């Protein structure tokens, strides 16, 4: 027995030697890793002293932090803290001065003049001039930059289309800097919400010196990331974290209470939730849906509405959906209260209109409140809706018999969030109308092009507003819009949108936009299901931060109690 024990001990020791030989191939690689791990303790060290650093999670590793190239919400959220546009959006959602202290527009709405603040500086201490804005805006319009949001933000600017199509030089874009503190924009068409565009992250100023010296790579290294916002990048470990420290050269640096913000780049919601529970993060955006029932009623769990609608596309080029009454019937057969509060666990709000709460009515007030004389378009009485839906189906010539379905339909969706649960619900709900629904789950990267091509019958869709002007969402249904995935084509609707685009009169514009939604909802051009919310965990220790209806969190003026 004793002999055996010795033997085992010897085997163990020998195997250690053996395995050390076995893993020699790993040794060079492991020593390589030393360089990256040696920088890691340094990172831990930098927030170890008394520095007040807020650790948050708003998404995974951002694809880019170049304002011109960003098209993601999480990237946009970080950009708000790094770069400051001419204008900003304040805590109440109103336009506020940013890098520009004052601004004015001519009566025809075509010339906008922005007056920059005195003594603006870049994070490297150099002076920020109006010509830097000219450079930045031209860069967005330049096709060589390939900025995904270029036409969303610059379409009304003189010569934009010609520049973006490569027919004119970017220097011919209608922007100029008569002096170091004045920035002038010439529009080719009046844009009633141009202030919102001037506050849009894509149009943040970029530092010409660093961009010229480093090309697209300027925005990936802290040393070359020169910015003008309240915070500046000091460290970026892709896939791990981004450390941003207060920018001493920011004009309003005195209002910043934090020393820094550490953005954990967590992709998995369970991982971010663990980080929150252990106190490694004080704020997380990604909460696992399975935890929600246990979090309801917890004061640190927040559900805030954002400007966005989860809706369904019924492909209007498919024979079945050429009849508006059939589309309407399918819409009415959905119990939105059940979908939002039970299936989606209250993390969405039931949507009875296309345009949800929060959109700014051009004539003043909330677009949602003013729509349809204050009534929702779709009644909240589900039983009555279902009865009406059945009548509509029968009138359209279908059996409408759940036992003997006479309509075959394929519903396509990708599998994430609640999409699959909703699909299964629709299968059941539309069966009431005698429709036999097949659910087709498509991988994300294939799903969006398929839907865009109109290669489906019914599909899920969704939109979150970029700015609070209703045109940002309602124009999705315009016949020639690139995001009109339902191929909805209604001349009356298009005419109403055309009016809203051409008029500078806010009341007339408001009327036209409401009329467009009236037509859209009457003809069930798409099927709104639920309004998006952001649901997140926020520690009670954080004060002075807020959440905006665009789905952004503002940490810049926050403090840790």
């Amino acid at each position, binding site marked *: 027995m004793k002999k055996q024990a010795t033997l085992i001990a010897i085997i163990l020791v020998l*195997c250690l030697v053996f395995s050390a030989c076995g893993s020699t191939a790993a040794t060079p*690689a492991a020593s390589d890793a030393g360089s990256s791990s040696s920088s890691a303790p340094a990172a831990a060290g930098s927030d170890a002293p008394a520095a007040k650093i807020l650790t948050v999670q708003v998404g995974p590793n951002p694809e880019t932090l170049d304002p011109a190239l960003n098209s993601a919400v999480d990237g946009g959220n970080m950009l708000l803290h790094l770069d400051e546009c001419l204008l900003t959006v304040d805590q109440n959602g109103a336009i506020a001065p940013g890098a520009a202290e004052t601004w004015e527009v001519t009566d025809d709405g075509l010339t906008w003049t922005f007056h920059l603040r005195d003594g603006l500086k870049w994070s490297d201490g150099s002076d920020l001039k109006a010509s830097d804005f000219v450079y930045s805006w031209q860069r967005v319009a330049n096709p060589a930059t390939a900025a995904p949001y270029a036409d969303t933000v610059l379409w009304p600017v003189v010569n934009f289309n010609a520049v973006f199509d490569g027919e004119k030089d970017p220097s011919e874009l209608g922007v100029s800097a008569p002096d170091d503190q004045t920035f002038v924009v010439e529009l080719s068409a009046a844009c009633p919400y141009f202030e919102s565009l001037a506050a849009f992250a894509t149009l943040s100023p970029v530092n010409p010196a660093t961009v010229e010296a480093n090309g697209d790579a300027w925005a990936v290294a802290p040393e070359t990331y020169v910015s003008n916002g309240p915070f500046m990048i000091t460290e970026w470990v892709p896939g791990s974290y981004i450390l941003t420290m207060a920018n001493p050269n920011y004009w309003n640096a005195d209002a910043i209470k934090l020393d820094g913000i550490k953005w954990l780049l967590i992709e998995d919601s369970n991982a971010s939730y663990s980080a929150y529970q252990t106190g490694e993060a004080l704020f997380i955006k990604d909460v696992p849906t399975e935890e929600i029932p246990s979090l309801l009623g917890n004061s640190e769990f927040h559900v805030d509405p954002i400007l966005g609608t989860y809706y369904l596309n019924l492909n209007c080029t498919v024979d079945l959906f050429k009849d508006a009454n059939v589309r309407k019937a399918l819409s009415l057969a959905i119990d939105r209260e059940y979908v939002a509060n039970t299936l989606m666990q209250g993390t969405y709000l039931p949507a009875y209109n296309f345009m949800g709460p929060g959109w700014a009515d051009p004539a003043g007030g909330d677009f949602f409140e003013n729509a349809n004389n204050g009534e929702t378009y779709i009644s909240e009485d589900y039983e009555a809706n279902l009865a009406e839906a059945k009548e509509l189906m029968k009138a359209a010539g279908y059996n409408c018999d759940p036992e003997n379905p006479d309509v075959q339909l394929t519903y396509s969706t990708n599998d994430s969030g609640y999409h699959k649960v909703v699909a299964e619900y629709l299968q059941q709900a539309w069966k009431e109308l005698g429709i036999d629904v097949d659910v087709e789950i498509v991988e994300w990267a294939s799903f969006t092009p398929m839907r865009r091509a109109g290669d489906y019958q019914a599909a899920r869709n969704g939109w979150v507003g970029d700015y609070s002007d209703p045109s940002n969402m309602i124009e999705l249904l315009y016949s020639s819009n690139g995001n009109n995935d339902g191929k909805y084509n209604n001349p009356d609707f298009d005419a109403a949108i055309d009016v809203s685009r051409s008029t500078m009169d806010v009341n007339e514009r408001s009327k036209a936009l409401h009329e467009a939604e009236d037509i859209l909802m009457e003809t069930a051009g798409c099927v709104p299901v639920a309004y998006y919310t952001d649901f997140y965990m926020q520690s009670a220790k954080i004060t002075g931060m807020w959440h905006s209806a665009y789905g952004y969190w503002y940490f810049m003026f926050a403090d840790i109690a």
Partner: protein
Amino acid sequence: MAKYIIKRLLLAVITVFVVATLTFFLMNAVPGGPYEAEKSISPTAKAALEAKFGLDQPLFKQYLTYLKNILHGDFGPSLKQRGRNVNDIIMTKFPVSAKIGGISVAVALIVGIPLGCISALNRGKASDSTIIVLATIGIAVPSFVVCSLSMYLFGVKLRWLPTVGLTTWKNYIMPVFALSFYPSAYITRLMRSSMLDVLGQDYMRTARAKGVSQFVSLFKHALRNAILPIVTYVGPMMAYTLTGSFIIEKVFTIPGLGGEFVSSIQNRDYMMIMGTTIFLATLMVFMTFIVDIVYKIIDPRINLK
């Protein structure tokens, strides 16, 4: 031997070339593209992007350009992580994965080989049964379960270990545990059966009959022969482990290369797909080559031709 090495090198180049070609055309055959999103970008913006990265060229021309670039060691720019090159991404992320992977391989060998030997030497006894049960659990339980359970227990409930990132040595414990869980169990079983096989051989009986001590017979004769299947397994396993694990990196927020394999495909980041695939293929071919050489060293009877 030199002839053998040259032959193997040539074969390796051909293998990697075939892998690259197949990947290139297969990934382009899958629907979707790098610039698809819920909010479509305008056709002009999309055209500008595609022109910038040469995606508007005919496929075969793109393929030739790509081949030309990789001959110069240039994997090109990432189509999604703007401003970053595939080379840079691999060079910053591979060391992270390789460190965790290297430690895990070592742990798996340190745990697996002795346990397998103990089990074989005590065949039928309680210690053998215990080890077999443990090894079976190790093989049956998927790594995401190990990750989540250890995260919940040691990270969230007991608060013994940090859950995010790789800042201190403590951060390595859970990922290494999760990553070495399966290979440890597999090596244990492999070692056990191969050891049993060797112990039953005539030459072992002869050795014992000649009065060779148990120590010498075990280490000089048995272990050396029994280790060969482990070497076969460890080679390719090392290539996979060093390049990172998608699940483990995701759960523990480790900035390794494993996540890039999966996300590049989901994002249709063609340059990243090609870069990571060629990198893994090269590593794989290299490891197999190393395994063959190690064979020769352990068992001189093997003739490399």
